[in-house]
């Protein structure tokens, strides 16, 4: 059969070569299934270890950015409304929203170059493409609430073009952190190293978890050497609570918040009158809260629908969480016995929050967001396994960049948590993809994420995995 396919392909190839044709008008615009500039990758929310009276909210966009993307270096889209939402009442409706809007300025319109010489300061005239952002805080519904501009004309860190163009990116161009006058808030926008870490290749090669079936090997951070675009704010905790005061302690009902991020594009129609282009409304095209829920729990066919949903509509997705598709595969591929549905333990972890830790109020609406108890002090010795590692300041109580959410969620999906004691044993509670940390260390201060990889790096993992490793159940797939 394979030989036949090759023959067919060869014949088809020959056909194309033999008959070069006219081009048609091809006036139709490119059809693209990707919208990376408005694509959320990850959201982080944690109490700042640098200033523990403040919370840090981070949202990343533009997946898998090649550092060497010239001549069109990645940037935020001026048309996209990037937002981070906070729910401090547990009703799955945003109470506070931080909106980022961008504008691009070209210093020299007579050249298309990103930089026209070596760039040694953020104001260097050789930096030809510059972005600036306005940060607005909205209290109440994000489209109709009370708006306060808390920062404007703030520079965005540029792309790290390469070590010749930008020989000392951090030292010369600065941190990109803006100190705002409102309540001592700080803000950042710009490219960063993608802080997510996962053995992407092995994971997609039928889940080659290297702790199973006795296999070992060197895992690879599949997102190593890739960049993302980051928006980040550091906000006094008291500014985020429903009462406007800092919580008295971890059991204070005022202590927990929910956080998620979206990207929205302006609504537009063919029938806009006059020279107007958009209606001024926005269409939400991407959404992210808890890591991997969109990817792991929501079926592929409804992802776009989910991306457009408000959290208040997440009840419709409850069935995907109570009866997830991943555990049966773990069982089928590796013989890992997992808890039977309905998985109310996952509902607690992903949709309602953990009572006594990060549940917001007493009867929270099920919704997909990161829940953070802001009264839990930052850990002095953080565990990458967060709560499963005994570190209550870590995921799923908020999410820090170093939290190993892949391992944590793998274990949660397998039932390897205290919520399901009968399954909280090896291998369920020891599942791992083998990548325990990011490819570059995080900064100790805001915005914490590492500087972007320079353009002279090509993107992609730095290290090659051992090609012969496999951990598929040798006796067959079904147990």
């Amino acid at each position, binding site marked *: 059969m394979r030989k036949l*396919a090759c023959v*067919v392909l060869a014949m088809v190839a020959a056909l194309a070569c033999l008959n070069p044709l006219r*081009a048609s008008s*091809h006036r139709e615009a490119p059809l693209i299934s990707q919208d990376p500039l408005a694509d959320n990758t990850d959201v982080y929310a944690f109490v700042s270890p640098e200033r523990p009276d403040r919370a840090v909210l981070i949202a990343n966009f533009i997946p898998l950015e090649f550092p060497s993307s010239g001549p069109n270096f990645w940037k935020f889209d001026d048309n996209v409304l990037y937002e981070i939402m906070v729910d401090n009442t547990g009703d799955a409706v945003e109470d506070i929203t931080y909106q980022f809007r961008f504008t691009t300025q070209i210093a020299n319109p007579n050249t298309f170059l990103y930089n026209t010489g070596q760039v040694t300061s953020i104001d260097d005239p050789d930096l030809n493409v510059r972005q600036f952002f306005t940060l607005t805080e909205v209290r109440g519904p994000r489209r109709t609430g009370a708006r306060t501009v808390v920062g404007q004309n703030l520079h965005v860190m540029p792309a790290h073009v390469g070590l010749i163009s930008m020989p000392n990116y951090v030292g010369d161009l600065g941190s990109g952190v803006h100190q705002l006058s409102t309540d001592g808030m700080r803000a950042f926008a710009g490219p960063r190293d993608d802080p997510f870490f996962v053995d992407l290749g092995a994971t997609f090669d039928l889940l080659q978890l290297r702790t199973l079936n006795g296999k070992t090997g060197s895992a690879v951070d599949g997102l190593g050497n890739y960049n993302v675009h980051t928006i980040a704010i550091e906000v006094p905790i008291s500014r985020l609570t429903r009462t406007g005061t800092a919580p008295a302690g971890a059991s204070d009902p005022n202590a927990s918040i929910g956080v998620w991020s979206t990207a929205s594009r302006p609504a537009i129609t063919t029938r806009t009158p006059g020279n107007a282009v958009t209606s001024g409304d926005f269409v939400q095209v991407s959404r992210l809260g808890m890591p991997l829920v969109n990817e792991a729990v929501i079926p592929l066919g409804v992802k776009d629908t989910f991306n457009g949903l408000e959290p208040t509509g997440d009840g419709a997705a409850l069935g995907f969480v109570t009866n997830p598709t991943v555990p049966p595969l773990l069982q089928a591929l590796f013989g890992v016995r997992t808890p039977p549905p309905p998985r109310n333990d996952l509902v607690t972890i992903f949709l309602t929050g953990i009572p006594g830790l990060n549940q917001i109020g007493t009867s929270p609406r099920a919704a997909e967001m990161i829940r953070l108890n802001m009264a839990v002090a930052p850990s002095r010795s953080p565990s990458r396994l967060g709560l499963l590692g005994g570190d209550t300041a870590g995921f799923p109580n908020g999410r820090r960049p170093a939290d190993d959410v892949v391992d944590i969620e793998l274990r949660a999906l397998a039932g390897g948590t205290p919520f399901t004691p009968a399954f909280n044993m090896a291998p369920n509670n020891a599942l791992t*993809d083998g990548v325990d940390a990011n490819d570059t260390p995080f900064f100790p201060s805001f915005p914490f994420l590492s500087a972007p990889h320079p353009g002279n790096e090509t993107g992609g993992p730095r290290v090659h995995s051992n090609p012969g490793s496999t951990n598929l159940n040798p006796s067959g797939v079904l147990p």
Partner: protein
Amino acid sequence: MNRRSRLVSVVAAIVIGAIAAAVFSKRAVPVHPVPLVVAENDELTTSRAELAAAMKTAEERLASDPADGRAAATYAQSALRRARVEANGGYTRRAEQVLRAVLDREPGDYDALKMLGAVYMSQHRFREAIDVATRANRIHPADAWNYGVIGDAHLELGDYVSAFDAFDKMARIHPDAAAYGRIAYAQELRGNLGAAIATMRMAAEATGAQDPESLAWHYAQLGNLLLQTGDLDGAAREFARAEHVFPGHPFAAAGEARVAAARGQVDDAVAIYRELMRTAPTSEVAIAAADLLSQKGDSSGAEAMYARAEAIEREAWLTEARLTTNLARMLAERGVRINEAVQLAEEAARNRTDIFTMDAVAWAYYRAGRLADAEKASKQARRTGTTDRRILAHAAAIDKSVAALNRYRDTGTGIRPVSLSRAGRVDR
């Protein structure tokens, strides 16, 4: 859409894999390692080299698994882009066969099906494109892609209401570069160049760095729009930008030639067109070159280019849909073989009534002296409110002749209205 799924997900791989392979299928699980995540598109980077590499990789995957719909879709999407940048329609036929091979094995493969609609569209098989995209739309109503195909095809057929409805649905689901580009074209067709320029800029802004071919396409369209407004410097800048992001893109070069011609730099324009005829020959380029050569007085050179244009058109009919609009218009504008021009134009209009076809019909009738028919067709050509210079120039000439004829009838002076040999020509 969150594409991140490629990542981490221990998961996404699993979901489809579990269902499709492990649990319900008779097939043993581990034989299908790559294409498990079917609903998420492969990353497509579109530099010239990457397009070729993507096709090669997809071919290898198809050789390993002939039912790999995702690989076939990746192959087809890359092939469509190459067809555009190399002006080689052979790629689209190859893409069709690859997709059909998958669909023969897996008739329900959504990725292959939705891409087949786009391939039909590129082959000018508009009704088939609508059929396929409608089927795909029934499977995934929330996928904006299919509305793009449906709208494109209706647009070519001249059903503008259906086309604009489809584009509006597309933009409601996901207003991104693909939707912006289409809405910009709708605004252009409606004669709203200011809005079209602004929307096309949004489309370019919304295009990621990984897709230089799309970027170049959007910049080139911006250049075309600016050219229509008379902003030659602005147009030149956009065409140069298109060339910068995708060196050798034929739309950039064709735009630069149009700017040169508009500036009176005819030799420069002809040189660019000649080079394009070597690297990415199209009938449109041949006609534009021939018109300029004719303008220069190089009649033999012009004749040769017109002949090439006709040959390209006729050759296309052997393998693609028989679209006769371009040849009809060319003959009518040249004032040669008018009966054949009328015949070809009428044939085209039996299949589609878009404003450009109706303009060709109007002009063929006009050159044949059938003023009443020409007037009627010309009104059809203007029905969207277009500001297309050629359509308006043809219409002005037709209206002028009709008015003169009416005066002639009223006054009985015996003076013929206007010469039909030179009127309505538009320099391109």
